[in-house]
Each structure stands twice: as C-alpha cells, then as structure tokens.
C-alpha cells in the first residue's frame, strides 16, 4: 500500500499559487477532490503525479519526493488519467491501452481485462480517433487500469466528466474495488452524484488552498456542501445510500415553468 502525502508543497503557476498545506489521502480509500474551476484540483493531481516541482515543501510517495523519482519507478506505483487525454498518432484503442504497460510486461489478457473494465471490449480494434468523446475518456481510464498494480495510487482528473451513466456506474464499482484492494485513489469531479458514490473522503480545494478535508459522510451533505461549493444542494435517497445533488433547479410537476 502506497502512502501519498502533500507536505505543504508550494507551486506557483503564473498568478496562481498552489499551497494546500499538509494533506495525506489514505491508502485503501477514495479521496474525491471538489472545488471551483481554477481552484487547483488539476494542479494537485499533476503535482501528485510528479509533473510539477514544488518550490517549497514536497509531495511524498512512501517518503520519497515524487517529482524527482525516476519516471519508470513512479509509473509502476502511480497511474494518472489526465483531464484532457491526447493521442497524437493514429493508434487503435488497444494500442493506447497497452501504453499503460509500456515499461512492464503486458499480457494480452491484462490489456483485454483493462478494456473490459472500461466497457471497451467491442471497440478495442477501432482507431482511437474514431471514438466519441466519452469513449476516448474511457480509453484513458482503461490505460490507467492496465498500468495500475494493486496497492498503487490512482489519480483521476475528471475521468467521469464525459462518461455515460451506466459506464460511470461500472467505473465507480471498479474504482471502489481497487480502493478496497488497497489502492490510494484521488479523483477530481464536479458531479456530486459521482462524488457521493465514490468518496470515502472529500478534499475541497479553492484558490489553491485546502478549504476542507474529511469524511464524505460529513462533507457531502446538504449542510456542508453549500458553504464549500457555493451552490444549493439537494439530497436523494438511492438504493445504496444518500446522494448529494447540486440544485440548479428541477422539474416542476404540471405547472408551466
């Protein structure tokens, strides 16, 4: 089980300063990142993946700073799904997913399993660029599945944003299963229903600072969320627990709107 730890890293990106303080997402749990656009969720995930060098402080993976770790070593323990996947060559879906194991042995079964987990089995031989937006996003998730080893770190940057509800439900199950198997999962999302299903813990980042870190049960509530996100929240009672939902308005029965 890997231990990921934000040790007061400070990262300046132009006018923006990322300074979340001390945060340690727990292994075996899913930590969901929420917060306003430009708050720093992507910055947090990229920094956790070693893509950004902190000017002060550090982000540690099992005690070692991630951004100075050799890429291959880091990749063996940590997989990232970027907010905007890019593939600059005419590869097939399977080719792209196999890249998750570019440095380690990749049995065809393993790749096939990763494809299946993201619902891509039918699409495996299609050119990546002939897929729809949501399908492409699922390819990136499948690549992370192929790369991920039990007990590693999974960093998901809005990996659900373009995914349809049934596939999102499947991905939620898969990711929770990884966490149950010991993975440290850090997932950014704006979708409170995804967050409700996925989160053990919630980390809220705004203006580059942590504004809250705690159990989902306490933070993903009608009481706590409005002050964290600045939006009205309603609650639905699903078959497997309470679901928080942003209240943008809804459907009024009969009466004209």
């Amino acid at each position: 089980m890997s231990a990921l730890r934000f040790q007061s890293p400070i990262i300046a990106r132009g006018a923006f300063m990322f300074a979340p303080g001390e945060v340690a997402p727990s292994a075996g749990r899913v930590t969901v990142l929420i917060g306003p656009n430009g708050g720093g969720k992507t910055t947090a995930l990229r920094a956790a993946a070693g893509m950004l060098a902190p000017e002060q402080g550090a982000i540690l993976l099992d005690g070692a700073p991630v951004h100075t770790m050799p890429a291959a070593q880091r990749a063996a323990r940590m997989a990232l799904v970027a907010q905007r996947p890019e593939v600059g060559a005419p590869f097939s879906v399977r080719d792209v997913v196999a890249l998750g194991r570019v440095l380690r042995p990749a049995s065809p079964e393993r790749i096939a399993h990763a494809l299946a987990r993201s619902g891509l089995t039918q699409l495996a031989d299609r050119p990546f660029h002939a897929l729809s937006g949501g399908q492409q996003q699922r390819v990136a998730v499948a690549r992370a599945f192929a790369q991920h080893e039990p007990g590693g770190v999974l960093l998901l940057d809005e990996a659900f944003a373009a995914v349809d509800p049934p596939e999102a439900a499947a991905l939620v199950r898969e990711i929770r299963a990884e966490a149950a198997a010991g993975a440290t999962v850090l997932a950014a999302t704006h979708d409170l229903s995804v967050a409700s299903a996925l989160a053990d813990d919630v980390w809220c980042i705004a203006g580059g600072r942590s504004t809250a870190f705690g159990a989902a049960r306490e933070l993903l509530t009608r009481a706590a969320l409005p002050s964290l996100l600045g939006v009205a929240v309603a609650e639905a009672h699903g078959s497997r627990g309470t679901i928080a939902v942003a209240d943008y308005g809804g459907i009024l029965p009969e009466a004209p709107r």
Partner: protein
Amino acid sequence: MMQRRPMIGLALMAVASCIAVAARLLVVRTLDGSLVVGWPGPTLGQFRVDAVLVACSAGAALGASGAILQTLLRNPLASPFVLGVTSGAGAGVAFASLAASIAGMAAPTGAALGAPALAGALLALGCVLLLSRRHGALDPITLILGGVIVGAIASAGSTVAEALLPPERRGLLTGWLFGRIPEVPDMGSLAACAAAALGLTGLGAAWGNRLDGAALSDDEARSIGIALGPMRTAMFIGCGVATAATVALCGPIAFVGLLAPHCARALVGARNRILVPAAAVAGAGLLTAADALRQWIDIGGGRLPLGAVTAVFGGVAFLVLLRRTAAGWMA
C-alpha cells in the same frame, strides 16, 4: 486509416528494397545505350557492392532518423534536415576546404572530409540542443525552430565559404554539397554509418513502445513511465550522430529522411516498433533504387544528380501512397 497487417507492409518493403539492391548490383546501361544484366567481375563488382552498402547504410540511417524525429517532434515536416545537422556538416566541409585553400594545402576529399563534416554536424547539434533547453527540458517547438535556424545560419556559412573559395575548388565543394553515393567509399566512414544505421534502427525498434508513448500529451507520457526529457535528448543525439555519419559518408542527401518515413507509415502504420525499421528499409531501398535508376537514365547529359533522382522517385512514390491509402499523418 488503421493498419491491420503491418508485417505484410514491412515484408513488401523489404522485397522492394531487395529488388532495388539486385537491380543496382546487376543492371547497368552500357555506353551504347542498352541495359545489360550481369556481374561485371571482381573490380567493378566491388564498386557496385560498395555503392549498395553506402546507399543502404545512409538510406537506413536517414529513414530511421526521420521516423524517430517525426514522432518525437510531432511534426510531419520533421526530418534529419530540421535538426540543422545536415547544414552543419556542410558548413564544416566548406570551412575545411576554405582553410585548406588559405593554407595552400590540397583540397580535402574523400575520407578527409569525414572529420570536418562530423565536427560541423555535432557542433550544430550541440547548438540546437542548447538553444532548445527550456526549463531544463527539450521543447519540441523550440527544437524544431532552433534546428531550422541553426541550419539556415550554417548553410549561409557554407555559401560564404564557397564564395571565398577559388573557383577551381568551388566545383568540388558544390559537388559534395549535392550529395553522392561514393563507389569507393572511405571504409571507416562506411563502417561508422552502417553502425549508426543499425544502432539507431535497433534503438528505435527496441524503444518503439516508448516512442509511441511520446504521442500522448507530455503529462500522460511521463505518467506511464517515460522519462520524456532524457529520451528526447538521447534520441535527438542518436539521430544527430547518425545523420552526421551519413553526411560524412555521402554529403547532404535531401528528402530521403523526410519521404521514407511517410512512405513507411502509409504501409505499416504508426507504431514505432515497426515504423522505425520500416522507415530504415524504405530509406535504404529508396536511395539504392535512386542510385540504380541514375545508372540507367540518360537524358543526354550523363547521369542525373542523385538528389534529383531521389526527390522525383521518392516524391512520386510518396504521392502515390498518400493518395492510395487516403491515410496521412493522422487518423
């Protein structure tokens, strides 16, 4: 278009290249204008064998470099030429000629050109690499622009040196700057170029999957474990050295490094594990075929310049493939 059967494409290209080799070895046009097939005996045969070895080594080195650079720079116009290395080597030779002329020494030829060509090439490569370090990592756009500019300045340097040379030495340099396949090559240069071609092709094939990974965004490439910075640097240096070895052997040979990868991509797809060897085979075949064609075509003024035959032959082949596959750089 997705390529389902890359190995068939590679086999096709290998066969075509073998035909080109056989053609260069066995067919010439005689003085009275007829094409004659046969082995000319040991001495002349050796010339043909050596020419084929040179063409294959140089073509393979250029093809493999071009494929790797197009992948790494994510630009279909990338080629060994844009690294500035070719022009750097040219400038090295031009200044060596000028220095010899000023010192009153005989103009350097053959093997004696290898050293200045190599020196010029490596100097240019060093400048380009230095210029394109940004925040410690190589930036593809800066590299491509830096390479073009360093190349332009180096070419200007050759032009100046050429202008300063006495005219009877100028022809020799101009001849060299056209590029040629020597029939009696300097064996050291040939060995170096062949080694560079094999090494680079092997490296490209062995690291083919990592090179594929470089097609992802920088973040994603790093996240799957590719040390993007070191890989870019290593590959650029590898391509630069291979190009330098080629230029030392044959002078600057244009277009092969640009066209061969595109021909290969149209036939075997974009996976570098196969693309790099395929581009090497395509380059070797292209250059050998152009050298063979040049022995046969006579439009009244003797043999055509190698560069011209390469450009026409390779260009037409590429256009056909471009139309036929309706596949291009992407998707």
